[in-house]
């Protein structure tokens, strides 16, 4: 109890003196950053998933090749989830003498749970059916159907006309322009016909053996949906699978993944900075405490007793800092809610207690790992220090003292980033950076030592000060560099990297796909596009094939544990050919073909599918293409940026290999907003074409990008604060020594001006050195992160880097001068008494 009371009193007094304040501030910021990022990431993620759900029609979709067990729906009901069922199957529909294969979707009231159906209910001429629709207020009334424009075009039907579906006649009541659940294999879609579930049995279409896909869509609060999905996965029987939006749409998955990485990175930077600030702030705190503990030792206090005092102090600071931090993080939720209402369509789920608990735990762990190893050395202060002031003064931190901090950092980073590779990269870079800074600072000091002695005036004072204490300079450059580097890195990430990311999906990214283009239509199509100012439209051939054998062994689906791998192996491949590799592809292994390889059985495979199906360079794949066996050898592996929305293929051959097989063609292009009319013309001229609209998907991805940049700004504010705390801590760490020295100089007759100039000189050199290290370090890290982690092209921004460097070199001495000014303005006597 006495140890605690002494600990408390000492803490109070050191709070008043200022040493503890920086430490607590850094801790508060670290905890606030982790807590609020925890809150933020979780909540915004679930909001984004929900938004993404608009593409799926719900947060979760269960697919089955048989009726979905009632137990699934009952369980969903018990868990308070909304659900609705749908059935899909292909069938022929008739209109007079014309018939057409359609993809029928049978829905219940309430469909879709997320997103909306867009329909056109007024009768217009077929060429105008692609535009001018409205959000549907329900589902097709019994006895009526909604059909896609191309079905209307092909069969020549319009609103009010009758269609024969199975054993029944239905009236077309609306033209269906957009539906959220239209995902899946977009290249094999027959036009859609949508009907009410109550009509299904009367059509007589669904009978034993029919190829019917059964679906159940679910929606609800994020946590509940996740728990349900986990429950469901354990129940799934044969032929059943469950999908969420990120499974369903790789574009969304990529965007969300990047968003998460950005947020994780910012949070990580905050934590690292806070830890550096805490370390720096703990140094003067330890220094100031030396005398007190020496005195206690002198009066008979045991090491054990001192340990108890120090531990009480550590825990007190941890409680104070973490408590305030968690409160601040929680309070930031109010701000977040306001932010969210501006950012998101839907309200965020309420904050849980977990991030606060996690934040508190992180605070204690950080304090114990970062500060305790250095504080603990106060146990060993010799009592003799009372008589010999120099004892215990020279403390060289052993590298082992930093191990707990690195471990906690690793855990925190992993927790924040949820991504081991990013965590390892950041940790390694940090270690490399520390080494680089130490070497650079050491070189700098060596260089200064060689400086000619005839430098005159006050500047000499500053340079001399640097030469006098190289260790301190290295430590200080380290603190400043880390602070500045983190800020620079954030500025780059926030600006350049984010912009680069958004550029991967530029305004003119393709937003329409056209499939089913016949070979004899290609030239006319090109002319059509040219006529309408759409010049750079590329048209790719496509031949469908089924994978039969790998290296002569029949394909065995049981070889694949992964559900996705099985589906990939099972479904038909779209094989394409090209002389040159597409620009947005990147060759990873093997070689692309030469003109001389024309007609050779070579194959270039996309990296992801090669990994999923365990395929490697040199493997021989046998496809069934239009009833013929075709053997191809994998000659290269490519990386494809699927989120650029351009047409891309898993498997590509050289020209001349697939010439004799029936091919259709595909293209993707950007249709500027307001020109939808063009599509009507296109369909009128080429009635067989299928136009697939991915504008909605693109908008979703863009929306995520935008929201993420806002979210990043928010987290960035914390990082900025912690960065400033580091800079401040680096200043405070050596302030006392500098004040003493400046006072001595003034006693010896130096003017305030001379002392101030000396100070400026010293810090200008430290600032310039730190700025140089920081800029180079940040640029390297940004490059590495962009190319290896985010997969975003990154252009080094030289003027920006120089600007930041210059600013840092000025900012550091300015801050130092501001911090010391009040001591310089006092008489030497006053200052002497106060130290």
């Amino acid at each position, binding site marked *: 109890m*006495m140890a605690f009371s*002494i600990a408390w*009193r*000492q803490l*109070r*007094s*050191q709070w008043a003196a200022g040493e503890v304040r920086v430490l607590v501030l850094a801790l508060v910021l670290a905890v606030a950053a982790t807590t609020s990022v925890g809150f933020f990431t979780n909540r915004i993620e679930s909001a984004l998933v929900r938004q993404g759900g608009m593409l799926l029609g719900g947060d979760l979709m269960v697919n089955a090749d048989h009726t979905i067990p009632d137990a699934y729906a009952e369980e969903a009901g018990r868990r308070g989830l909304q659900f609705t069922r749908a059935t899909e199957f292909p069938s022929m529909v008739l209109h007079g003498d014309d018939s057409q294969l359609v993809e029928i979707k049978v829905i219940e009231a309430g469909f879709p749970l997320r997103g909306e159906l867009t329909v056109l209910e007024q009768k217009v001429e077929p060429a105008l059916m692609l535009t001018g629709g409205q959000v549907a207020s329900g589902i097709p009334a019994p006895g009526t159907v909604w059909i896609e424009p191309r079905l209307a075009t092909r069969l020549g039907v319009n609103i009010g006309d009758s269609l024969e579906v199975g054993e029944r006649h239905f009236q077309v009541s609306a033209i269906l322009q957009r539906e959220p659940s239209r995902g899946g294999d977009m290249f094999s879609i027959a036009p859609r016909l949508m009907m009410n579930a109550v009509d299904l049995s009367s059509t007589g279409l669904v009978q034993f053996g029919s190829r019917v896909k059964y679906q159940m869509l679910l929606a609800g609060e994020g946590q509940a949906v996740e728990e349900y999905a986990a429950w469901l996965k354990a129940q799934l029987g044969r032929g059943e699978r469950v999908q969420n939006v990120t499974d369903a749409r790789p574009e969304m998955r990529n965007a969300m993944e990047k968003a998460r990485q950005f947020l994780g990175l910012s949070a990580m930077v905050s934590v690292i900075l806070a830890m550096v600030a805490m370390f720096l702030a703990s140094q003067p705190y330890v220094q100031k405490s030396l*005398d*007190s503990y020496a*005195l*206690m*030792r*002198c*009066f*008979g*206090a*045991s*090491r*054990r*007793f001192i340990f108890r005092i120090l531990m009480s102090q550590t825990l007190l600071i941890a409680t104070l800092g973490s408590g305030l931090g968690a409160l601040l993080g929680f309070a930031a939720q109010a701000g977040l809610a306001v932010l969210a209402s501006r950012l998101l369509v839907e309200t965020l789920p309420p904050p849980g207690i977990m991030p606060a608990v996690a934040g508190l735990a992180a605070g204690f762990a950080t304090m114990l790992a970062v500060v305790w190893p250095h504080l603990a050395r106060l146990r060993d202060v*010799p*009592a*003799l220090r*009372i*008589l*010999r002031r120099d004892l215990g003064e020279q403390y060289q931190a052993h590298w082992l003292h930093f191990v707990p901090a690195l471990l906690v950092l690793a855990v925190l980073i992993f927790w924040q980033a949820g991504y081991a590779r990013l965590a390892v990269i950041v940790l390694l870079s940090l270690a490399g950076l520390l080494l680089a800074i130490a070497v650079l600072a050491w070189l700098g000091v060596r260089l200064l030592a060689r400086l000619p002695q005839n430098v005159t005036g006050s500047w000499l004072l500053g340079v001399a000060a640097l030469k006098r204490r190289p260790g301190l300079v290295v430590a200080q450059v380290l603190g400043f560099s880390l602070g500045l580097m983190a800020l620079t890195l954030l500025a780059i990430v926030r600006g350049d990297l984010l912009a680069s990311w958004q550029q991967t999906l530029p305004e003119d990214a393709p937003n329409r796909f056209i499939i089913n283009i016949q070979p004899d239509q290609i030239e006319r199509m090109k002319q059509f596009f040219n006529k309408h100012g759409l010049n750079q439209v590329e048209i790719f051939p496509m031949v469908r094939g089924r994978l039969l054998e790998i290296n002569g062994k029949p394909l065995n689906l049981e070889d694949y544990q992964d559900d996705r791998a099985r589906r990939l192996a099972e479904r038909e491949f779209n094989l394409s050919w090209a002389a040159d590799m597409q620009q947005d592809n990147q060759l990873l292994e093997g070689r692309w073909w030469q003109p001389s390889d024309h007609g050779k059985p070579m194959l270039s495979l996309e990296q992801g599918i090669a990994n999923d199906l365990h395929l490697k360079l040199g493997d021989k794949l046998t496809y069934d293409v239009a009833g013929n066996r075709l053997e191809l050898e994998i000659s290269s592996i490519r990386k494809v940026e699927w989120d650029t929305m351009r047409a891309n293929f898993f498997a590509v051959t050289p020209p001349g290999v697939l010439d004799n097989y029936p091919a259709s063609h595909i293209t993707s292009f950007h249709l500027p907003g307001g020109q939808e009319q063009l599509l009507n013309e296109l369909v009128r001229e080429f009635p067989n074409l299928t136009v697939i609209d991915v504008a909605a998907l693109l908008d979703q991805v863009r929306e995520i990008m935008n929201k993420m940049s806002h979210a990043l700004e928010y987290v960035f504010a914390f990082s900025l604060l912690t960065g400033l705390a580091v800079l401040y801590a680096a200043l405070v760490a050596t302030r006392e020594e500098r004040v003493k020295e400046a006072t001595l100089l003034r006693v010896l007759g130096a003017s305030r001006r001379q002392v101030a100039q000396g100070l400026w000189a010293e810090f200008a050199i430290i600032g310039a050195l730190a700025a140089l290290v920081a800029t180079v370090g940040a640029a390297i890290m940004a490059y590495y992160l962009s190319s290896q982690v985010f997969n975003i092209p990154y252009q080094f921004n030289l003027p920006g880097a120089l600007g930041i460097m210059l600013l840092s070199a000025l900012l550091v001495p300015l801050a130092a001068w501001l911090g010391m000014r009040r001591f310089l303005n006092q008489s030497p006597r006053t200052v002497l008494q106060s130290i």
Partner: protein
Amino acid sequence: MQTPLAVEAVNLDKYIENGTDRLDILSSLSLQVPAGEKLAIIGSSGSGKSTLLSLLAGLDSPSSGKVLISGTEISHLDEDGRAAVRGRSMGFVFQSFQLLPSLTALENVMLPLQLAGRNDAKEKSIAALERVGLAQRLSHYPRQMSGGEQQRVAIARAFAPQPAILFADEPTGNLDEHTGERIVDLLFGLNAESGTTLILVTHDMKLALRCQRRLRLHEGKLHEEAAA
């Protein structure tokens, strides 16, 4: 009957080795201080006075030789062991007062008593502060006091646990002459009341003359000074 020895040093050596060089501070120094004696150790600056004091008080260990406190050897104890001996039987008054800035006058005086686990820490401390004339300043912090007042708190702190031995290292070194005299009066007055063994290290002959015995430290050895 012979008075028991409060402090005894036998063949003390203290040197500092720096590579091949060796600097002898104390060599084969022996000393006997009977209980209740007032002893002054004088010497010029750098003669090793403070080193000797630190060895006698167990703040440091000798290079060779031994130190006995009330007949028990302390030189072979570790830091914690010596701290325990200090806590039990020694008090200190330093040149630079050495008060904890975070504690009030009362709390500073209470500290050694509390460290020794005494239940009467508060009463004893209040009494000690009253004795040095600071009854009205109990809750003041060191920074709110003058140098003389701070040293009085330090004296109260030194006497409150009623130590067997009191070590004073230049107790007036940081004070003006007038204040210094009053502090010395107080120190010797309290010492007379309690009968504590006093070992005073100073270069101030006037102060040394108030002790029963004076030893001059010169070139690492002690020499008896004739009474004035």
